[in-house]
């Protein structure tokens, strides 16, 4: 166990020295494996075993059928972006909420939630919505603090409301049903929207000038705006409905595997963007290129993490943790509280996927041995990961906003995000103490 903990510390140091996460985890994982197998760092037997494990891991991960869902969902998000669906979502939520104080920020949160239902990435959701919502909020004189914060926080919903790339990877890592994870993300995602709406209310209550009301739209305009979001609903129904057997009716007779759902979603988004004439050849190539780059970077981290987790497992850390908890009769809730604190701390340094990959293989056996539900834990991990996306100093969504908007400091965004961060902590507590909120849907209708 000591060796594994030293390994952890080394990874952390190397990562802080700016070594790419894949190489930090890969290097420490390989050397640790050599040590555990051969008894010393220079053992030839250990070296042979470690290299054999590393070679196999690289070959297998790159050719994993289950993981093909990752590039397809990323591609779907990018095509959706080109199809102008975010604009329609924003217009529709704006029609209903815009006339309230802080209404445009509320509309942003709701539109982010809607966009999350057709996009599996938080960063993509934040980047897309910032292009759509930010100019509008500026036009009505919203403070930068509120407008950027509502997008950065709303964007985090991307990885919780299905589809979600992070939930797919959690599912593959822990052999938990991806379908069940997706459906379990819906209620916590909706709760996230409601809590963020309260955070907007709180912000405009504290500073009424931060979010002035826009003009009210009549019911005809509202209905028209609502009618425009058909493409979003269609895509969501195709992907999530297909996954849940909603299309398993004559004459279609279709139930999708996660990869098929992602493929249908990507193709659907592609066709919608094409039909609307908003996808030039150059845009298509750009979307494909960006997807390939993002996927390769994610797969690299995945390979590094698997090498590292092989070492940690060989060093017996998960078993040692289970033994430690059982021997000392620590209550399950205390363990969970500790795990959440560790996540919140790690979230300050690591980006979402690396944090998940580094910790889940260690915590998962412990958590399930204590009787917690694997689907519930997946959602808890994703909610903590969402929080890390808006936690200083490396809250990635905040940096995305800074990158897209430009003339606003990260300090301003982080200050604006504070009420949303607190709302997230409340939501996390609610989900931890009321697991029912997460499990009711998968238990009643899971595949």
């Amino acid at each position, binding site marked *: 166990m000591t060796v594994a903990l030293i390994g952890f510390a080394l990874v952390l140091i190397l990562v802080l020295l700016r070594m790419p996460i894949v190489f930090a985890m890969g290097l420490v994982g390989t050397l640790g494996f050599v040590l555990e197998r051969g008894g010393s760092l220079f053992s030839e037997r250990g070296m042979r075993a470690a290299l054999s494990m590393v070679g196999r891991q690289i070959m297998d991960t790159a050719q994993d059928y289950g993981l093909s869902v990752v590039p397809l969902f990323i591609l779907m998000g990018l095509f959706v972006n080109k199809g102008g669906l975010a604009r329609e979502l924003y217009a529709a939520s704006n029609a209903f909420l815009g006339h309230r104080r802080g209404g445009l920020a509320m509309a942003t949160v709701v539109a982010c939630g809607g966009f999350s239902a057709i996009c599996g990435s938080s960063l993509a959701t934040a980047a897309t919505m910032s292009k759509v919502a930010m100019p509008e909020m500026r036009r009505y004189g919203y403070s930068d603090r509120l407008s950027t914060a509502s997008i950065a926080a709303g964007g985090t919903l991307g990885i919780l409301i299905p589809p979600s790339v992070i939930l797919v990877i959690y599912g593959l890592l822990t052999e938990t049903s991806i379908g069940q994870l997706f459906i379990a993300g819906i209620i916590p995602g909706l709760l996230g929207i409601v809590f963020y709406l309260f955070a907007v209310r709180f912000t405009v209550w504290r500073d009424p000038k931060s979010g002035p009301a826009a003009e009210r739209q009549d019911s005809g305009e509202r209905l028209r705006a609502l009618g425009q979001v058909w493409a979003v609903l269609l895509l969501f129904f195709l992907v999530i409905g297909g996954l849940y057997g909603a299309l398993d009716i004559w004459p279609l007779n279709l139930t999708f595997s996660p990869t098929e759902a992602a493929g249908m979603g*990507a193709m659907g988004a592609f066709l919608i963007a094409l039909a609307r004439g908003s996808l030039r050849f150059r845009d298509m190539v750009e979307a494909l290129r960006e997807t390939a780059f993002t996927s390769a970077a994610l797969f690299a981290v995945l390979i590094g993490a698997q090498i590292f987790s092989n070492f940690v497992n060989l060093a017996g850390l998960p078993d040692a943790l289970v033994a430690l908890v059982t021997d000392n009769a620590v209550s399950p809730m205390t363990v969970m509280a500790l795990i959440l604190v560790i996540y919140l701390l790690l979230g300050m340094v690591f980006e979402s996927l690396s944090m998940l990959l580094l910790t889940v293989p260690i915590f998962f056996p412990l958590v399930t041995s204590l009787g917690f539900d694997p689907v519930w834990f997946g959602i808890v991990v994703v909610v903590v990961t969402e929080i890390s996306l808006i936690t200083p100093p490396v809250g990635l969504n905040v940096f995305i906003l800074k990158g897209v908007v430009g003339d606003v400091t990260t300090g301003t965004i982080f200050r604006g995000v504070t009420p949303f961060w607190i709302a997230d902590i409340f939501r996390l507590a609610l989900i931890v103490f009321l697991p029912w909120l997460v499990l009711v849907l998968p238990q009643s209708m899971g595949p």
Partner: protein
Amino acid sequence: MRPVLTLLRQASHLPVALACTALFVLMVMTFSDVVLRSAANAPIEAATEITRILMAIIVFSVMPVISARGGHIAVDLTDPVFARYRLGRWRDAAIHLAAGLMLIYPVRQIWVLAERARGFGDVTEYLAIPQFYIGWFIALFAGATALVLIGLGLLHLFAPKMLRPA
């Protein structure tokens, strides 16, 4: 030296184009598989193995390019500290060289695995595509990634000016 770098930059479009094509084919194939299964009860039987091959192509063909562009996921929290003491260049040189050199061993191992598959005559289930082609492909591009990283490390050490855009 600059012409060589320009040539390498131009050449990098090729593997990117390959990855884009593989990704597009993956999307269309998955869609067609589902539609054919539903409409004609005739799914593409080899879809799973083609998916696996396409995945390897998508992931590994762009690996040298993202390594060259610094596209790997990393944490830049300590950048200001390195900048203050003007150590950024040395740190980047060390990291690139270490990453490139440490990749050499797995690349050799993947090559060994591919050769073993060739020796056994391993082929894929439906299309009988020899497995070692995939191994060779991964080894080739992982090897290129190692070379790119080592090259970048050396440039950081000996010719940092080359790394700034012309």
